[in-house]
């Protein structure tokens, strides 16, 4: 790009300085070459910086992508269960926990969907759900580990009074157990720092919530 422009200027200056004309252009070429190489070097460094994350980001069949997609599905049902409990449960502690789970997991869905966008992957994978899990956990009737069946979800929606609390607590405890199982799978195999960070927080949260859910279950039973 710059080459034609500079050679033109050399032509213009050559006749005006006949004695030193021989040396000056040569020096200028050196400077130009230096400048050009400096620019090329900087561009190379910049391009390397730009390309490296692209080359190292998780691919379509990666564990990270599988986790982000399937945990989104898993979380989505927890959000539905929790919002049902927030609306209809009797015990205030259950409602309080339910709304925290709902917004917390919806927030995590946002993070995981952002990963997929940043990795330039679709929210839906080309492989079947759960195929990233190396321990052979599978989808049964479209359900990942710990997920409630459509019948259980319908029963929760139709439940009244303290029965809402009881069903919600049972379903959410199973849901968290299945969720922790999936989180453990990604924790064991990924080295992506951001995925590790979020998955660790997810696991810690669900484990402490499990304790609180079990405590409330005893309370709701009595």
């Amino acid at each position: 790009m710059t080459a034609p422009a500079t050679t033109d200027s050399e032509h213009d200056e050559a006749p005006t300085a006949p004695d030193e004309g021989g040396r000056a252009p040569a020096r200028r070429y050196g400077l130009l070459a230096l400048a050009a190489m400096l620019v090329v070097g900087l561009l190379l460094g910049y391009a390397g910086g730009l390309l490296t994350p692209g080359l190292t980001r998780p691919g379509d069949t990666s564990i990270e992508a599988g986790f982000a997609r399937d945990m989104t599905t898993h979380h989505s049902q927890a959000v539905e269960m929790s919002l049902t409990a927030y609306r209809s449960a009797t015990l205030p502690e259950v409602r309080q926990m339910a709304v925290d789970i709902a917004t917390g997991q919806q927030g995590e869905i946002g993070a995981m969907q952002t990963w997929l966008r940043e990795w330039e992957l679709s929210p839906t994978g080309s492989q079947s759900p759960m195929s990233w899990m190396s321990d052979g956990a599978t989808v049964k009737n479209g359900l990942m580990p710990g997920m409630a069946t459509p019948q259980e979800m319908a029963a929760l929606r139709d439940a009244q009074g303290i029965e809402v609390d009881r069903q919600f607590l049972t379903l959410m405890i199973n849901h968290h157990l299945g969720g922790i199982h999936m989180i453990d799978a990604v924790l064991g195999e990924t080295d992506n720092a951001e995925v590790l960070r979020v998955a660790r927080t997810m696991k810690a949260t669900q484990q402490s919530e499990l304790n609180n859910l079990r405590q409330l279950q005893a309370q709701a039973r009595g």
Partner: protein
Amino acid sequence: MSISTPGGPERRPTVVSTGKKPAAGRPASGAKAGSGKPTGKPAGSPRAGGKGPRKPIAPVKVSQGRAWGPIALFVAVGVLAAGIIGYGAWASFQGAKPWDKRANAIDGIVNIRKSDPDSLKYEAHKSGPLTYKYSPPVGGVHNAAWQNCMGDVYDAPIASEHAVHSLEHGAVWITYRPGLPQDQIDKLAGKVRGVEKMMLSPYEGLDKPISLQAWGFQLKVDNADDKRIDEFIKDLRVNASVEGPTALCNTGITATGTTPRELQQQPTQ
């Protein structure tokens, strides 16, 4: 480069160039062809242009051209190195210091996560009044209900049993000793009001005028103008959350009073 640059334009050209002319002629052109594609093109066309009007000029150029070959090589290597170093700097800039390292660097901060992690452990929510090791508390067991921390400015003390739950959700809780001048309180309120994951309240028995809490971190200062207050908020608000950035601060207890409250049973629809 350093040799040819000062010597170049003034007196030397005639002496040096004529002396070098015979020897320089061939290797120079050979070097040019060999040394590279980048210099080949721009060098070629002007030389052809120079040859036309003035014959003696051409050899001078050639003799100088030879020096540029190795120089260009060195420069290329240097530039490549600079590129690699530049990329390294770029990469390390991307992965800037993590928040906990920045928080640790705040002068006078107490990191209870490091110094006393056991005090932060708990099994499950516990109702009723609880005792805390630190004053104001920085973490540990707490009630099921959290104190609303949506930028709430409380004008009376609040229950630690709720406030600690807010810390768990990533809130920064600013406390001040009752009797702090109003203009100081207003300055603190200005940092809190309207900002989620922030709350402000007076705290009885504080050993310093102002104390800031996040889960596992505490900083006590004398003055609301202290710059470390903003650093503490910048490094720890949301970051210190045990349950991620979207743990709730709304739907919490909005009442003041140091006796923890049971959640009110709301009429169901």
